[in-house]
């Protein structure tokens, strides 16, 4: 009796699956056919992105990229969804390929891979789908249909170093890195160079936590640094850096006069640093992924997709910048920072990419 | 006649196995009613039916004359049926009161009123002469006391029919005497008791009537005053049982086991065997008598290669096996029935067949070239199960599911079938019923008669007296004396085991200094 019922259920399930499968099959070839730069009926341009495991609310570059895409969408009257703009989040490294593929199959004209972790996946998909237009942030993929976007993180970090060196009261500042990879090392190198240029006597304490997603590690590292006398910590550690903020805020809560500051990274992290009426965020080194994403999307929409090229954004073209300090940095220091910035833009100072 | 409990024609099946087949048990108010049967006869099943843990397939249960349907233990509790389990169900680091009220807390606005509970426990304890301190922690009180806590637990919940499941299994003789007094007091106060046991002595001492079951079937009910242990034993086993083991004269030949000046330390490094000398010859059973903890465990482990030897020498049939690995010792011709069959003798989660192969699995014909042939294991198991009367559904049944006696028979089958020159039997009958004890003793004697050497370690005086051809008394890590069973008495042995070697003090001292 029970058996028969289940047999029925099972066949229903199977039937629905064939139906579903049939729908899928119908769609796929059609969608796959109109990828690439072949214009759709109303010349609407659509764009999407794949995040790494961070997600679009990582308060960092995934979020920044998504903001750029949303702004692009608004400016061009696009809706979120097929034919407009969208994103997919990855749960693990193995998901990049599938997510990129899914978006291309849904007919997006340009698909971004956000983050160096996606380098391999973007390269592979670019080869499999030569008609698709792809872009990658923070890495270089040498394929004719991929635009590679890099940033001069060192230039922004340099200004952060200047700010830290001039604002420190203890003569000691800290740097918390995620993993020791080229991107993060550029931050470190720029930060060190900035401190050195502004005040060679200031000591820089550098620590790598080995992870971008371990807030508790960030917190203990910050605790060690503050306890050892540092008063400003610059983090380039993604979600690990949230722990740096937590530590600073806890210290500020216990003692409102505590002299602890954090310099944020990628996005303006001012909101992260709020403690009651005060704030521990000195400033943030902005990596304007949003600007870059917006820029590349616009180029592609206008038929100028920089496939096969590597575009580097720096201080000059507002690819990197310092966030508004909201009064935390004094006027005279801001003036000095501006001076250094002009020298970099003018090419009088070349900021090193690696720590020597 | 008024019965408080009537279980009429109860039938309980597990798959194709009938655990209870048409059993009837009628308990009168205010009596101690013993339920007697071998291990695995179906006593526990019947009681679990009464306690609501199993639902019977047939039959009827009446409590105080009314037919009831006991669907779970809560119903049983409400009917005033309480069970004192063999394995106590107590929380070690809780107090007596806390354990008693656990799951039955009296609360005042959500807060447990411990003081009130404690008073009630104290009052109950005094009423039945249990002498329990309500505020003591379980881990601090003796096993006998813990059992009284279990009794209190049932009384606290208002039980007036108490089931005692093998209550004396883990008690000292003194505690057993006290328990019997408590049971008599309970009955005087109007309670009724069902006593599950296979110990005939207890039944004769305490019960009013006895219901006997055998192999899942009810044999009948007799009045204790009108019967005797012999009759009870044959009713239980189904044939005439000999209490005195029958054996012929021993004809010892050349030496098998020779231990010279053996010194062994326990895991803490404390010397437990101190220069021990012992000899066991072909065709004799040597019994080691002694109180637990005098070095018996370390001695066996040293012989079998499980423990490092600190000094001295062990030879088997002239071969030096001192410090050899267990397998080397086994292959030198030693069989071993370990004292803790659950921990050391069996892999309880393995099928009984695998357990029977535990010493031979790596040899041909079972294993060839690293490949094991389970069908050979099954063949071997079937043969030994048949030959040693191991009662099990099949050789694939997990060892855990067998009764203690059948587990032990399987171990003996495994060890004896390998035909070892020396068989070491450590507490081979612990926890077993008379039928199984008789079987095991006769196997040991059979080994001797076939010219093998047997070393028997036991804490039970009558076992040592009955089975051994020669008795070596161990005290404080040394053999302080050797006696012949026919030349000694329990009293003398008892004194020797306590270290009072009056008879040969001087000789003994000279020998071992």
């Amino acid at each position, binding site marked *: 009796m*029970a058996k028969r019922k*289940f047999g029925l*259920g099972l066949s229903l399930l199977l039937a*629905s*699956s064939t139906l*579903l*499968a049939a729908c*899928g*099959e119908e769609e796929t070839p059609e969608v796959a056919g109109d990828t690439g730069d072949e214009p759709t009926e109303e010349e609407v341009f659509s764009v999407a992105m794949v995040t790494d495991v961070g*997600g679009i609310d990582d308060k960092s570059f995934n979020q920044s990229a998504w903001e750029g895409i949303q702004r692009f969408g608004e400016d061009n009257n696009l809706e979120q969804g097929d034919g407009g703009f969208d994103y*997919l*989040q990855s*749960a*693990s*490294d*193995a998901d990049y*390929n*599938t*997510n990129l*593929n*899914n*978006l291309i199959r*849904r007919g997006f004209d340009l698909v971004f891979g956000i983050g*160096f*972790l996606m*380098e*391999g996946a973007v390269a592979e998909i670019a080869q*499999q789908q030569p008609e698709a237009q792809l872009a990658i942030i923070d890495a270089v993929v040498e394929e004719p249909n991929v635009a590679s976007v890099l940033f001069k993180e060192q230039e922004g970090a340099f200004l952060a170093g200047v700010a830290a060196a001039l604002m420190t009261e203890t003569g000691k500042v800290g740097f918390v890195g*995620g*993993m*020791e*990879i080229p991107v993060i090392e550029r931050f470190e190198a720029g930060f060190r160079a900035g401190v050195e240029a502004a005040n060679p006597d200031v000591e820089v304490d550098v620590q790598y936590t*080995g*992870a*971008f*997603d*371990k807030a508790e590690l960030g917190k203990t590292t910050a605790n060690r640094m503050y306890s050892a006398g540092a008063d400003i910590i610059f983090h380039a550690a*993604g979600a690990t850096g949230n722990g740096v903020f937590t530590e600073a805020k806890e210290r500020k809560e216990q003692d409102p006069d505590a002299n602890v500051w954090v310099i944020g990274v990628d996005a303006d992290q001012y909101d992260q640093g709020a403690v009651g009426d005060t704030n521990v965020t000195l400033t943030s080194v902005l990596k304007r992924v949003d600007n870059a994403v917006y820029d590349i999307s616009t180029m592609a929409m206008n038929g100028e997709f920089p496939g096969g090229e590597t575009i580097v954004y720096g201080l000059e073209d507002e690819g990197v910048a310092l966030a508004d300090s909201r009064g935390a940095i004094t006027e005279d220091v801001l003036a000095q920072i501006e001076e250094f910035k002009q020298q970099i833009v003018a090419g009088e100072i070349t900021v090193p990419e690696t720590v020597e | 006649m008024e019965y408080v409990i009537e279980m009429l024609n109860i039938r309980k099946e597990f798959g194709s196995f009938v655990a209870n087949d048409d059993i009837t048990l009628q308990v009168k108010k205010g009596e101690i009613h013993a339920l007697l049967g071998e291990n695995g006869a179906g006593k526990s099943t019947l009681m679990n039916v009464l306690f609501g843990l199993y*639902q019977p397939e047939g039959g009827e249960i009446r409590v105080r004359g009314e037919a009831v349907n006991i669907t779970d233990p809560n119903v049983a509790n409400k009917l005033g049926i309480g069970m004192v389990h063999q394995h106590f169900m107590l929380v070690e680091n809780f107090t007596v009161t806390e354990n008693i009220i656990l799951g039955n807390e009296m609360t005042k606005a959500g807060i447990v009123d411990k003081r009130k509970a404690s008073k009630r426990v104290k009052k109950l304890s005094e009423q039945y002469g249990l002498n329990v301190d309500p505020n003591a922690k379980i881990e601090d009180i003796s096993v006998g006391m813990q059992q009284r806590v279990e009794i209190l637990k049932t009384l606290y919940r208002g039980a007036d029919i108490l089931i005692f499941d093998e209550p004396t299994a883990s008690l000292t003789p003194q505690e057993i005497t006290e328990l019997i007094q408590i049971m008599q007091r309970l009955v005087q106060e109007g309670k009724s008791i069902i006593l599950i046991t296979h110990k005939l002595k207890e039944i004769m001492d305490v019960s009013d009537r006895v219901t006997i079951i055998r192999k899942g079937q009810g044999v009948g009910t007799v009045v204790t005053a009108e019967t005797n242990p012999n009759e009870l034993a044959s009713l239980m086993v189904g044939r005439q049982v000999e209490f005195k083991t029958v054996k012929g004269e021993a004809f010892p030949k050349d030496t098998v086991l020779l231990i010279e000046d053996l010194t062994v330390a326990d895991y803490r490094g404390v010397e437990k065997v101190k220069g021990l000398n012992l000899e066991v010859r072909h065709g004799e059973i040597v019994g080691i008598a002694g109180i637990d903890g005098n070095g018996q465990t370390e001695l066996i482990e040293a012989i079998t290669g*499980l423990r490092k030897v600190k000094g001295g020498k062990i030879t088997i049939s002239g071969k030096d096996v001192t410090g050899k690995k*267990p397998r080397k010792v086994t292959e030198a011709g030693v069989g*071993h029935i*370990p004292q803790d069959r659950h*921990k*050391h*003798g*069996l*892999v*309880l*989660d*393995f099928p009984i067949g*695998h357990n029977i192969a*535990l*010493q031979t*699995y790596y040899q041909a014909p079972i*294993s060839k070239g*690293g*490949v*094991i042939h*389970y069908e050979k294991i099954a063949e071997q198991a079937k043969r030994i199960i048949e030959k040693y009367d191991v009662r099990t559904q099949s050789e694939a049944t997990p060892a855990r599911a067998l009764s203690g006696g059948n587990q032990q028979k399987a171990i003996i089958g495994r060890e004896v079938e390998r035909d070892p020159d020396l068989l070491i039997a450590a507490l081979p009958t612990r926890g077993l019923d008379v039928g199984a004890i008789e079987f095991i003793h006769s196997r040991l004697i059979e080994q001797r008669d076939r010219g093998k050497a047997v070393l028997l370690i036991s804490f039970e005086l009558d076992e040592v007296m009955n089975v051994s051809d020669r008795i070596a008394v161990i005290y404080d890590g040394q053999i302080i004396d050797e006696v012949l069973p026919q030349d000694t008495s329990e009293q003398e042995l008892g004194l020797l085991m306590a270290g009072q070697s009056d008879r040969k003090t001087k000789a003994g001292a000279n020998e071992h200094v």
Partner: protein
Amino acid sequence: MSNRTTNLLVPVLAVVLGLLVGAIIMWVSGYDAIAGYAALWDGIFGDLYRVGETIRQITPYILAGLAVAFAFRAGLFNIGVEGQLIVGWFAAAYVGVAVELPKVIHLPLAILAAAAAGALWGFIPGLLKAKFHVHEVIVTIMMNYIALHVVNALIEVVTGGSERTERIFPSASLRSPFLEALTDYSRLHYGIIVALIMVVVMWFILDKTTTGFELKSVGFNQHASQYAGMKVDRNIILAMVISGAFAGIGGAMEALGTFEYVSSKGGFTGIGFDGIAVALLGMNTPIGVVLGATLFGSLKYGALNMPNAANIPVEIVGIVTAIIIYFVAASYVIRLLIERAARKKEAK
């Protein structure tokens, strides 16, 4: 009700219940559950590409599950599968990029290197457990962290400062143009065959060899095994070594199939930890592991399509898939309910 119907009914009911509760969660959160499940189904079986990718996802789960199950059968709780898998991944990728050899040598060599690396990573906790009675759970957890950071450092060393190795030579690759063409350019690779061979290997070791008998015996009861003359220490180490080798081969699947390189990791892959659930779902039997891995891998991969096609956020998707797995794992509760219902019926 017969045992066989119950055995069939239980997993089916478990999945159905899991789907139901998952649907309620989607509805309560304001998402279309039917569209969600359609997307899930479509994400697993929708087209050949997805079927290929689903099988690819299942492959490492099988091996991680085997690793956990094997240790479990020997009474050991190997939490270190994750670390063993990571070192295996690195070893295979390293052999893949360091030399170029004929495929018949190169590919087996790379897989063997992964097995050896995983085995080494299992050997250490095995040795510590056997000789010094250090609990394997503690050691294996720590070995996971060591694996993660050592591999990250090694990648930097062998690549001269990069966070990612080159692609392996095609001679070491498990990828196959044939399978890719068959599945519309999915990353399906021959690893699934390797994984299934390992399933047979585990079955053979456990159920056909003398060593397997000893391992199981030691797993159930070390004391009795020692009494029976088995070398307990040796068996513990051996169990961990074989378990580690399975995990290492799991890493090779990623190195030689899915990714064809190894890159610095900011955190664990999660495959090793999921392997624990896979093994338990499969009741630590080789066939069970295949079924557990299939469920796990399908849900993991199919779930990617839920945000894609039904706009359900990944967080909700994560909860829904976890609930389905949870119900399958808790299927003994369902078994209990069925048995109770059956008993009631009989009683009447």
